């Protein structure tokens, strides 16, 4: 057990202040659609260059954890995930807000994010070196199957229409192929357009597919954006903690899932949120209310995506392989500071690493009051702003957020067009989530598929390459389970009901 001196070092007034500033800045930036956790860290990272490495790492971790939580606000209140990690939060968060429970959903997200963040940090503290080996066990084909697993999960979850979900996922994967090819650098599907050369930017697509349909429906009627069923005077904290306590096992399981998925480089919070949401729904007694504003759904996704912070730092610090995109930015900043990550960091640089891990605990705890306050302000703003200001403000934010990613006006046009397409598809039962996840996971899936294909073809063992490795087979089993479990459950239920009717 690392010594108390590191705890004291993490608790210095300067480090506490940096953690508080980092969490606040991350939460505010993460709440703006288009500004992701990666951007929050990247934008604020130069501030840390003049600090000592431990404090710098602590502040970057605090920004990262705050930004992941901040993404939940837009997901709950506007049906637009502030960050890709909050995609699954929209499933139950927005229906809760529509029912007038937006304040409770925001508080639940805060409680879950803090719990998930603490579990992730605990794994980082106690199990970092052995868990880092997991990341090395995953080869290209495993990443391909993992991406497919994420897509089948979201297809099965999003609207309850598997076939349409899978079509949406394929559409997203094809959109991800636009531009320069991942491995061979060939130009694909641009049809001579210079604008499409850079491909479709993921966050722009996310903003378009989620936010524009909301705006289109918002502007069309004089109805209020969100229902207000009661005069909310408090954070509804007791209620949120009671719900969280009732679902404590689900919360813990989601946090562990988030940590383990976070360890896998590139997988990130979006898959973590989906896997934990799917598990929570599968095991819940109230599974039929998932997708209609079930608090357990918000708890599962938000705890999982914040647990990826600690999980992602495991391969980053132990192996020097960034677990998530913000980890890559943090890794770069550490290299600038002269810190060499790797197994020896935990022994040679114990002061930096353990100060940071304890700092991450502190930052996560500080996220509780900060998150509650910012969340309350965000909720009150959204419900009190008149439509004539809300619509242009959100539209303006989508334009600004999209432009700021690549400084490209073309990205804004693509974002708007995708939004209109998303609105039309939505009217015929195609959810935006599989399309967005297809775009996000497209490059991971393609890299894994093409590398496995090339190796398999060269060794004349194509079948064995895709279906002959133990981890791959396990993930394939999960894929089959996620695809066929709802159908089998339905059949089993019908069979049981028939049986009981016969007895009567």
């Amino acid at each position, binding site marked *: 057990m690392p010594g108390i001196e590191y705890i004291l070092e993490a608790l210095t007034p300067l480090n506490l202040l940096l953690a508080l500033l980092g969490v606040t800045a991350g939460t505010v930036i993460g709440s703006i659609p288009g500004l992701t956790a990666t951007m929050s860290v990247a934008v604020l990272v130069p501030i840390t260059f003049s600090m000592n490495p431990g404090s710098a790492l602590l502040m970057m971790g605090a920004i990262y954890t705050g930004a992941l939580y901040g993404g939940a606000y837009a997901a709950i209140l506007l049906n637009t995930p502030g960050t890709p990690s909050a995609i699954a939060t929209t499933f139950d968060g927005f229906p809760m807000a529509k029912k007038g429970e937006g304040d409770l959903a925001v508080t639940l997200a805060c409680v879950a994010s803090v719990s998930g963040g603490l579990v992730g940090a605990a794994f980082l503290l106690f199990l970092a070196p052995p868990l880092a080996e997991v990341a090395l066990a995953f080869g290209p084909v495993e990443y391909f199957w993992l991406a497919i697993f994420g897509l089948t999960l979201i297809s099965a979850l999003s609207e309850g229409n598997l076939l349409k979900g899978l*079509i949406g996922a394929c559409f997203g994967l094809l959109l991800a192929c636009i531009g320069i090819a991942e491995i061979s650098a*060939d130009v694909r599907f641009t049809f001579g357009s210079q604008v499409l050369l850079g491909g479709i930017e993921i966050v722009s697509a996310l903003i378009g597919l989620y936010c524009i349909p909301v705006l289109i429906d*918002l502007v069309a009627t004089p109805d209020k954006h969100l229902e207000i069923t009661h005069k909310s005077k408090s954070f509804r904290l007791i209620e949120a903690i009671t719900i969280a306590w009732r679902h404590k096992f689900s919360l813990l399981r989601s946090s562990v899932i988030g940590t383990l998925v976070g360890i896998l480089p590139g997988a990130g919070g979006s898959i973590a949120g989906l896997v934990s949401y799917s598990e929570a729904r599968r095991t819940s007694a109230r599974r039929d209310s998932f997708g209609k504003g079930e608090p357990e759904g918000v708890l599962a996704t938000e705890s999982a995506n914040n647990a990826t912070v600690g999980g992602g730092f495991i391969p980053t610090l132990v192996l020097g392989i960034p677990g998530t995109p913000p980890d890559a930015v943090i890794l770069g900043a550490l290299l600038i500071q002269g810190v060499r990550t790797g197994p020896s960091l935990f022994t040679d640089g114990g002061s930096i690493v353990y100060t940071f891990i304890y700092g991450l605990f502190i930052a996560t705890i500080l996220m509780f009051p900060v998150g509650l306050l910012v969340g309350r302000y965000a909720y009150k703003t959204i419900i009190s702003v008149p439509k004539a*200001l809300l619509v*242009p403000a959100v539209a303006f934010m989508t334009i600004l957020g999209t432009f700021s990613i690549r400084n490209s006006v073309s990205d*804004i046009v693509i974002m708007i067009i995708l939004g209109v397409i998303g609105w039309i598809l939505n009217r*015929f039962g195609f959810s935006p989530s599989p399309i967005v996840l297809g775009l996000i996971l497209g490059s991971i899936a393609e890299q894994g598929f093409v590398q496995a294909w090339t190796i398999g073809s060269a060794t004349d063992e194509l079948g064995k390459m895709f279906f002959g490795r133990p981890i791959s087979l396990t993930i394939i089993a999960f894929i089959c389970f996620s695809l066929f479990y709802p159908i089998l459950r339905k059949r089993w239920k019908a069979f049981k009901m028939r049986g009981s009717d016969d007895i009567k």
Partner: protein
Amino acid sequence: MTSSKMTKKNQNYGELVLPGLFILIAVIALWDTTNMMDSDSYVFPRAIAIAMIILNLLLIARKLLNLTNDKEQTRTVGASTFRRVALIIGMLISCMIMPYLGFLLSGIITFIFLMIISMYDEWTIKNKIIYPSTALITVIGFYLLFSKILLVPLPTGVFFD
């Protein structure tokens, strides 16, 4: 919110047209891959395009055989198509004028235009003062935050260079 069931006829029509469009997209993608020389470039998109065609054919077959158990989609009654179209056109025009007028000016124009089309309340004197002032404060505030603090190079406009 007042809502009614989307007309069955329209939904049936869309249920067949959309898979047809997806198949067309997949066929175009397959055709485009024939120009690629390196197998690393085309193996993945071809696999996805073929999967997309199969899935859409299954969707069409399911619809034609009446095996679908889709939830009926709801449509808002009395929703203004004009405002919806104006919103999209307003946002697209904002993109077109941005390189010329700069982000700040085009942002203010777009904000005010979208404010007008989403206004359902009466334009009282109070509203006439508060709403445009809020628009100005919001746009200028975010412009300064992004351009001066976050250092995003927002367009200044060719007329103001």
